[in-house]
């Protein structure tokens, strides 16, 4: 049974109005508003993120070397991504342009462990119930338990891959929660041999399970080709980090943006130069900013980030199994890009394979047992860094005064980069699925499926009891509420 709470009320005169129990505008909940035009057709749909915007101010006044630890407070799902991104920015502030091989590989190992486990949670817990059991399957069964009952091995993959990623984080950062690996200019430990050996013992199995998950997902795509191609989909620009040779790069590199045909919009852009290429627009109806490519303007300059963008933007993947999977994936595009929104999931599994392969390579690199951990340099007033977090491009920008205190912080998180794209996916679903003035369970369900493809990071990271429902509201051309539905 669905946990929707709906009361019905009639207003007179005027349209039928469905009213829900009052929902406080608490931080962290998602709100979708569908606006109809005079003809009763969908004019636009907006995905609002009701989120307290204040974490940049939270960082101001902190000592710059504290920041890599403090920023882990921003998100309970991606603390490692913020930890690493802040550390890279503070390397610049500390006057360090290149850290030692041991430090870089320790950070990479932690990063790939984080991306692996986070993508596993998304794919197995959020996506697989929709994909393996079907969009229209009963809500009561469409969850990870339903998946485990239908595909017993998937539950094991989900938990064990996630656990392995957490063990990588613990081995590099001291503990799986609140890890503390990075300091400006390097790291504070190398990889203990006993931890290396324990991870080596499991990594081949992890790669194997990721490959089996890919095959399972490809069977879904084969069986639902049209749905996969068209659901909530549209052509778009893409942006991600790439390596100097065009390889997929999640930890370091330069920005590359491409248009819907795959032509470069810009490439080789250093993180320090991001403001020459990107602009962040504020819109009055949303707490979340709308970044776009400066040269293309707000109407045409929006883009997508995340696993789909990482694969569309790169020339190749530097690990063998993932590269084979990338070629297979790109064949969908017939020589062009892949634009299907549901392809985020396929791309996410390829990213998992790449992460697991990279972790294996690193575990057999003796640099991880090196003892040269930190480099020092001449202090600078500013630092910018970018990593590819599990949900896509994450940017941290700081200015630091003579007292070593942060005076300015600007963060562009992955979900913010995908803001416009999420709106467009929800709009596409509304146009395709809304009939009349009723928010059906089917419409609500499809809106959720579309949002799950991006797996937005909403609350960063409070989650006190009662938070984070999804609220969908239907409005007429004058903005009057026609119907509202809440999914707890």
């Amino acid at each position, binding site marked *: 049974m669905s946990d929707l709470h709906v009361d019905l009320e009639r207003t007179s005169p005027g349209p039928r109005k469905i009213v829900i129990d009052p929902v406080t505008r608490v931080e962290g909940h998602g709100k979708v508003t569908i606006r109809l035009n005079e003809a009763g057709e969908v004019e636009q749909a907006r995905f609002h993120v009701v989120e307290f915007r204040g974490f940049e101010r939270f960082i101001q006044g902190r000592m710059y070397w504290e920041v890599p630890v403090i920023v882990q407070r921003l998100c309970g799902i991606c603390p490692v991504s913020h930890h690493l991104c802040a550390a890279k920015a503070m390397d610049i502030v500390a006057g360090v342009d290149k850290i030692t091989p041991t430090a870089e590989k320790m950070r990479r190992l932690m990063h790939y462990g984080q991306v692996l486990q986070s993508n596993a949670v998304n794919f197995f817990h959020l996506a697989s119930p929709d994909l393996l059991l079907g969009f229209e399957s009963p809500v009561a069964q469409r969850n990870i338990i339903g998946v485990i009952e239908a595909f017993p091995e998937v539950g094991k993959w989900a938990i064990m891959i996630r656990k392995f990623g957490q063990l990588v984080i613990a081995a590099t950062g001291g503990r799986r929660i609140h890890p503390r690996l990075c300091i400006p200019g390097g790291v504070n430990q190398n990889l203990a041999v006993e931890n290396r050996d324990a991870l080596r013992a499991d990594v081949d199995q992890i790669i194997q399970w990721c490959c089996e998950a890919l095959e399972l997902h490809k069977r879904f795509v084969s069986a639902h080709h049209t749905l996969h191609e068209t659901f909530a989909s549209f052509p778009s620009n893409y942006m991600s980090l790439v390596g100097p040779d065009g390889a997929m790069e999640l930890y370091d590199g330069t920005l590359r943006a491409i248009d819907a045909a795959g032509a470069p919009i810009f490439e080789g852009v250093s993180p320090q130069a991001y403001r020459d290429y990107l602009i962040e627009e504020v819109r009055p109806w949303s707490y979340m900013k709308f970044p776009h490519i400066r040269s293309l303007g707000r109407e045409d300059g929006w883009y997508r980030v995340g696993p789909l963008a990482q694969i569309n933007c790169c020339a190749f993947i530097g690990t063998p199994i993932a590269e084979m999977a990338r070629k297979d994936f790109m064949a969908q595009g017939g020589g062009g890009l892949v634009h299907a929104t549901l392809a985020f999931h396929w791309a996410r599994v390829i990213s998992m394979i790449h992460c697991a392969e990279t972790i294996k390579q690193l575990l057999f690199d003796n640099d991880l047992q090196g003892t040269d951990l930190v480099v020092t340099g001449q202090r600078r007033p500013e630092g910018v860094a970018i990593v590819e977090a599990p949900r896509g491009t994450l940017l941290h920008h700081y200015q630091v005064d003579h007292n070593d205190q942060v005076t300015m912080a600007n963060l562009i998180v992955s979900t913010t980069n995908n803001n416009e794209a999420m709106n467009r996916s929800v709009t596409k679903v509304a146009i395709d699925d809304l009939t009349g003035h009723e928010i059906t369970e089917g419409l609500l369900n499809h809106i959720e499926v579309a949002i799950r493809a991006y797996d937005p990071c909403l609350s960063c*990271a409070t989650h006190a009891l009662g938070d984070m429902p999804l609220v969908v509201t239907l409005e007429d051309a004058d903005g009057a509420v026609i119907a509202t539905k809440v999914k707890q």
Partner: protein
Amino acid sequence: MQPATTAARARVLILGYGNPGRGDDGLGPAAAARIEALGWPNVTAYDAYQLNIEDALDVAGHDVVWFVDAARTGPSPYGIEVLAPAASLAFTSHLMRPEAILAMAHHYYGASPQAFLLGIRGYEFAFVEALTQAASGNLASAVDMLTDWLRAPAASPAS
């Protein structure tokens, strides 16, 4: 002093979750830290920003589980709810309910620990690493209750 009753035998997990960087959202971790400091061998206490799937492994390894979270609404100083396994599907991975963790522990590991949700009332959730005075008082009451329960477990703790 260690408990001398059945709590000494039952394996108890105290899982406090929340973000200490967000004011009273740190109530769960603060409660877990205080219980951990007791050092009782049959009691495991740890904290997490958010619940996640691997918590099912820890849950499955215990006889009794207390999930401890901050509550935006509800009774002061705290409320207690008996939990049962219930799977669900959210629209973001940034939300995992304790009932879903219990469902995974049950379906995948065959474990059905007795489970409670302790919601400690909080008031301010801004970016600050401190509890409000009122929340601190609620925390003290909740920890007292939890400590008493650990000494003499009851099937249905009084809220």
